[in-house]
């Protein structure tokens, strides 16, 4: 039996996937399917309970969860098929898409395929930071999920490595939840995230940002006990006790489905949102993805 065929399949139901589907639907693309691996649409917005979203697109500042809720309504209003808890693990150059769900493994196909798979965080391992490998080392996004979705505290004495936006947001979030955030280290000579996040998340809470400072070693047998870091301007090394390290050292577009299939975009296959390149604001993700959707015939 030939796989069921859609005009458009969107892989990923986060902000870019939803927008691409909405854009395509308003351009009268008939059969559209969104495949989302989590139980609900919204993607990473679902764990972003802080303000800073929607000013450009909805002309109103709101939280990530509110932004997701408002946009989801627009998706539900259209004639778009949504499959959640479905993980796509394979695509082909013929735009066949294989996904797994609790109902089984299925392959569907489409005339157009939009990869709205977002991005993932760089990790401690990718930097091969010297030292031990105890508990207490998290990417900022994982810590955010633990705090905001699962309601648990990953640690009490925190150091942030890298000055990406999620790290800055988590410096504030952890402080509000009662942790002591000692400092933020940034190896470059400039901030990596948005200035407004530095002001609102570090400065307002008295958390120092050390530019041109490098993490040298992680210390601790079972749980993180301390870190060694170096001022690269002076070459001076310092030790600070902590039980938690949050890494916010960059984001990588998720393009592994393409890499694994040894195909690139073109011929009806598109990348959008953070899967294409990493954006600062969700509003621009939405606008770009809507435009891409509208261009689908």
């Amino acid at each position, binding site marked *: 039996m030939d796989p069921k065929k859609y005009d458009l399949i969107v892989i990923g139901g986060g902000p870019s996937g939803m927008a691409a589907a909405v854009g395509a639907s308003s351009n009268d693309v008939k059969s559209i399917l969104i495949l989302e*691996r989590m139980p609900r649409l919204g993607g990473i917005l679902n764990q972003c309970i802080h303000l800073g979203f929607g000013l450009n697109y909805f002309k109103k500042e709101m939280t990530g969860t509110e932004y997701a809720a408002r946009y989801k309504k627009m998706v539900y209003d259209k004639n778009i098929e949504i499959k959640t808890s479905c993980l796509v693990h394979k695509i082909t150059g013929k735009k066949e898409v294989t996904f797994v769900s609790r109902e089984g493994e299925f392959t569907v196909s489409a005339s157009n395929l939009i990869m709205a798979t977002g991005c993932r965080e760089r990790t401690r391992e990718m930097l091969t930071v*010297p030292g031990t490998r105890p508990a207490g080392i998290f990417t900022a996004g994982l810590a955010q999920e633990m705090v905001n979705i699962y309601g648990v505290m990953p640690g009490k004495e925190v150091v942030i490595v890298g000055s990406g936006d999620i790290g800055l947001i988590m410096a504030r979030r952890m402080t509000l939840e009662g942790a002591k955030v000692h400092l933020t280290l940034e190896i470059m000579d400039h901030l990596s995230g948005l200035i407004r996040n530095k002001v609102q998340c570090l400065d307002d809470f008295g958390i120092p940002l050390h530019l041109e400072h490098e993490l040298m070693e992680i210390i601790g047998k079972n749980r993180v006990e301390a870190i060694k870091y170096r001022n690269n301007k002076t070459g001076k090394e310092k030790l600070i006790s902590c039980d938690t390290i949050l890494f916010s050292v960059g984001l990588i577009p998720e393009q592994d489905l393409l890499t694994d299939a040894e195909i690139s975009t073109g011929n009806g296959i598109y990348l959008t949102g953070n899967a294409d390149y990493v954006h600062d604001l969700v509003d621009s993700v939405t606008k770009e993805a809507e435009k891409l959707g509208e261009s689908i015939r």
Partner: protein
Amino acid sequence: MIDFIIIGGGIVGASMAYELAKYQFNVTLLEKETELSFGVSKSNSGIIHTGFQDDHNSLKGKFAVRGNQLYREMSKLLDFPFIPTGELVVAFPGERESIEQIKENGERLDIPGLEILDEKWLDKNEPMLSKEIECALLGPTAAVINPYEVIYAMAENAISNGVNIYCDNEVTSITKIPNLWRVKTSQAEYESRYVINAAGLSADKISLMAGIKAPEIIPFKGEEFILDRHADRLTKRIIFPVPKKHTKGILLIPTVDGNTMIGPTSNEIIDREDWSTTKEHKQEVLKGAQKLAPSINEDLLIAAFAGLRPTIKEGDFYIKEDRDGFINIVGIKSPGLTAAPAIAEYVVNMLAKNITLPERKNYNPNRVAIPRFRLLKTKERNILIKRDSDFGEVVCRCELVTKGEIKEAIRRGARTLDGIKFRTRSQMGRCHGAFCTSKIMAIMSEELGISFDKITKKGKGSELVKENGS
């Protein structure tokens, strides 16, 4: 009454448990860590050696050759991956004589298939290797395994044959009482006819508890680095340089999981719990690996780890019944993983001289692995999902590990995130657990009936969460 207490749940202890389970004995294994394999064995290179790098007169050489044979049979019975990669010892200009000597040593050990191959063959079969290499000794019997996978397989089989295994159970004292040994631990007190000391890095200390001076353990640290799977297996075979006196050198190892591993370093250390990695050693490993395969670069590294070798001055393995009923297995460093099943066989043969070994009735020779969703075909996947829909819920997206596999790992004894990682490969992929860690914790919380703050990475003290929400 217990017949045998095995101290240590690494590859040697697990091999002993598996071997003794074939007989009608009461066997108990005690492990101080929260799970088996969490000591020396978990960070082993996973190489099943041919045996030709160790002297033909040594226990090391003999047991490596025998162990290599035993793994082949066991991998079928116990359903664990055994990848017969073969190995090459490569010779740079001026080193040909060294590999000829290794070949001769190997022939005395009756290792099959040894062959010295020229540049042309290397160009064709291992094109990624340095063009400066003149020739290489091929050992076709070498292979790779995942040490922890083998340990869990052996343990599961042993348990199905009545062996008791207790983790988080550290031995604190050992005393001789008439005809028996009394072993006190952090949890309980046991009496046993025999004690088998397979305590790895602590083997000398355990022996001293029983009043026996065994060779002192000198830990040697080895750091290893893993390359991204996108880099593919650089070489088909394990690549060795010509060995130095105390070490086999920095190698290229194609792993069971399809990555290439490079390392290890070899440095004497004092702290028996120093599992740290360093910048200097990363550079040393990169340099060593680049000498063998020049295309390797720092950007390919995705993970680092350190292992400790329980080395002794004596050089060869130390395996002896040092006092009536107290058997020391000490200094089991490379080729210890390869040799372990042969060591267990040797110890059982040693016992057979003094006691009768009644065969276990209804002995179960098998063990079936946890289904590995990623490796199944669509049809097989759908059968599995139909039987249990948890196998349709992907938890770790990098390695395509399902909730069904995580639950099965817990059912088989996983109690920590690392234990689940070693049994399922979850958290081992590109995102290093950023996506799946919290989802696995939720499953552990549900299955084990514990709150998040009780969940650890690798046992007590390594809790992931400092505080539960309300």
